[in-house]
């Protein structure tokens, strides 16, 4: 049996290893080592927990069986999941962290002696507060992530679900969470504990349903942050350093990612937290659209344009992920490179359904990461490029964000695609993107629309090159 002080020291070590795991992600070269540090930290934390309890009776077998069961399921999912489904996977994982936090809080509430927190009905006040916060945030994370998962999977409609009095209702529930927590701490009543969990589940659900599909990058980051705070809350209850450090790391990580995503869409953080998405989109949809002439072409025209270019910039978006066109795209680029054409990729911060989604898909298709650039790095290069090849992206290229203060996306950073000598748009139709606004680029003199499935069009272009 490990002494309490020694185990605390080991928990600190695993906390430090988790910091190094995140630190490793500052560059792809060090990232694999970072992941190894993370695994090591986890092994230390779990081993130390077993050793410090030292109760190797029948309970141990049951614990190991459940551990193994979860581990096998997790490993199976990790190997089977296609890269295009990463947003769903991460949302699903968040829900599990949330639920695990809730279950640990319930276990601690029912059997506080096991955690040295007092006795049932007489739990130390501080622990009870920490436990309630952990449980409430965990429950919100769980139900919120489930909704995010359903929306990403397409089981639930991606369009915002709004109703009258939504905000007052949410505010009322949030206030009641605080009141119930207060009453719970003063009375120690287990009924109040269950009520707290129920209304927390409810608010998590209500907070995410009004948020639309394309805003999922913010939602996923936000839930990532919540899962961290839930873990930290439980960490305080258990007086466990590893858990407190991790909770703080994950909490701030998610918060930073949400901030980056909000900035990428020029939305305020509060707009996100209040679930007010979709309000501005409605008015834009109402705008009547006039018929304007567009130039549309086929794979042959596109191939001709690119063959005569000396530099091409690819702008991938969510449509590329939906069409699974990343491999076909890389083959096209390989052919271009054989003809001594310089190719680079431009990624908008909110391209795809989660932060960094496009980068993973391109990496999967064997695109070297040093050919892939962020918006700030590449935006000046459009003026010198011959062809911009926009595949499955739309709103993130719309110049109206720079020119029209009335537009719902005004102020959003966009890729300066229109500065290229010519622009190729692979799209299924002229329909507007998520923001519901027309893209002026479609009607420009130097734009050629390629109406087709992204994967098929890319393959056809390669044949014609």
């Amino acid at each position, binding site marked *: 049996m490990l002494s309490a002080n020694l185990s605390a020291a080991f928990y600190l070590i695993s906390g430090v290893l988790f910091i190094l795991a995140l630190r490793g*992600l500052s560059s792809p070269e060090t990232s694999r080592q970072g992941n190894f540090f993370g695994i090591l930290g986890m092994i230390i934390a779990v081993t130390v927990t077993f050793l410090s309890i030292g109760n190797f009776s029948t309970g141990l077998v049951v614990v190991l069986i*459940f551990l193994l*069961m*979860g581990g096998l399921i*997790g490993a199976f999912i990790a190997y089977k999941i296609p890269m295009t489904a*990463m947003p769903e996977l991460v949302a699903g994982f968040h829900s599990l962290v949330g639920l*695990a936090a809730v279950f640990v809080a*319930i276990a601690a509430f029912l059997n506080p002696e096991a955690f040295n927190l007092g006795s049932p009905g007489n739990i130390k006040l501080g622990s009870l507060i920490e436990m309630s916060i952990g449980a409430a945030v965990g429950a919100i994370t769980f139900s919120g992530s489930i909704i995010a998962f359903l929306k990403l999977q397409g089981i639930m409609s991606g369009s915002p679900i709004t109703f009258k009095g939504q905000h007052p209702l949410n505010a009322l529930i949030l206030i009641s969470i605080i009141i119930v927590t207060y009453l719970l701490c003063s009375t120690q009543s287990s009924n109040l504990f269950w009520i707290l969990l129920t209304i927390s589940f409810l608010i998590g659900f209500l907070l995410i349903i009004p948020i639309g599909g394309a805003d999922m990058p913010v939602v996923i980051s936000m839930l990532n942050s919540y899962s961290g705070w839930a873990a930290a809350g439980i960490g305080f209850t258990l007086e466990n350093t590893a858990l407190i450090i991790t909770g703080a790391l994950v909490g701030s990580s998610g918060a930073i990612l949400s901030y980056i995503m909000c900035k990428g869409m020029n939305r305020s953080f509060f707009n996100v937290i209040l679930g007010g998405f979709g309000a501005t989109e409605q008015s834009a949809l109402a705008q009547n659209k006039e018929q304007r002439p567009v130039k549309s072409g086929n794979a042959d025209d596109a191939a001709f344009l690119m063959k005569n270019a000396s530099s091409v910039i690819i702008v991938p978006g969510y449509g590329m992920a939906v069409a699974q066109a990343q491999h076909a795209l890389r083959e096209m680029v390989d052919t271009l490179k054989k003809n001594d054409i310089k190719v680079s990729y431009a990624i908008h911060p909110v391209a795809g359904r989660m932060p960094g989604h496009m980068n993973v898909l391109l*990496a999967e298709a064997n695109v070297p990461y040093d050919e892939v650039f962020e918006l700030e790095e590449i935006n000046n290069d459009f003026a010198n490029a011959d062809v911009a090849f926009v595949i499955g992206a739309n709103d993130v290229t719309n110049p109206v964000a720079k020119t029209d203060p009335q537009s719902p996306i005004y102020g959003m950073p966009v890729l300066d695609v229109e500065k290229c000598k010519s622009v190729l748009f692979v799209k299924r139709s002229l329909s507007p993107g998520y923001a519901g606004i027309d893209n002026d680029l479609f009607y420009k003199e130097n734009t050629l629309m390629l109406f087709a499935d992204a994967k098929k069009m890319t393959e056809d272009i390669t044949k014609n090159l």
Partner: protein
Amino acid sequence: MEIDPFIFRLSIFILSIFIGYYVVWSVTPSLHTPLMSVTNAISSVIIVGAIIAGLAGNSDTIFNTSSIFGFLAISLAAINIFGGFLVTQRMLAMYKKKKKDK
């Protein structure tokens, strides 16, 4: 007067938020998806609480309510730990640098 140990834990927490802030800002944007999956995996260190709950009972009370919630939490956290680290590994293995020009 002695300082409540809670204050020490709070100090660790606050300082860790700052560490997280600086460390995460230095994460390259192209690795934001692996960042999310690895944070998922490490936040599942909550499994330590689940193990404590699961091992709390003696042989007659292995399956009391508290322990059962502990067992379930162990499975949930284990899915995340294995799934999170392995899928991160899988993603990171795909990030390759440009081959030197032949």
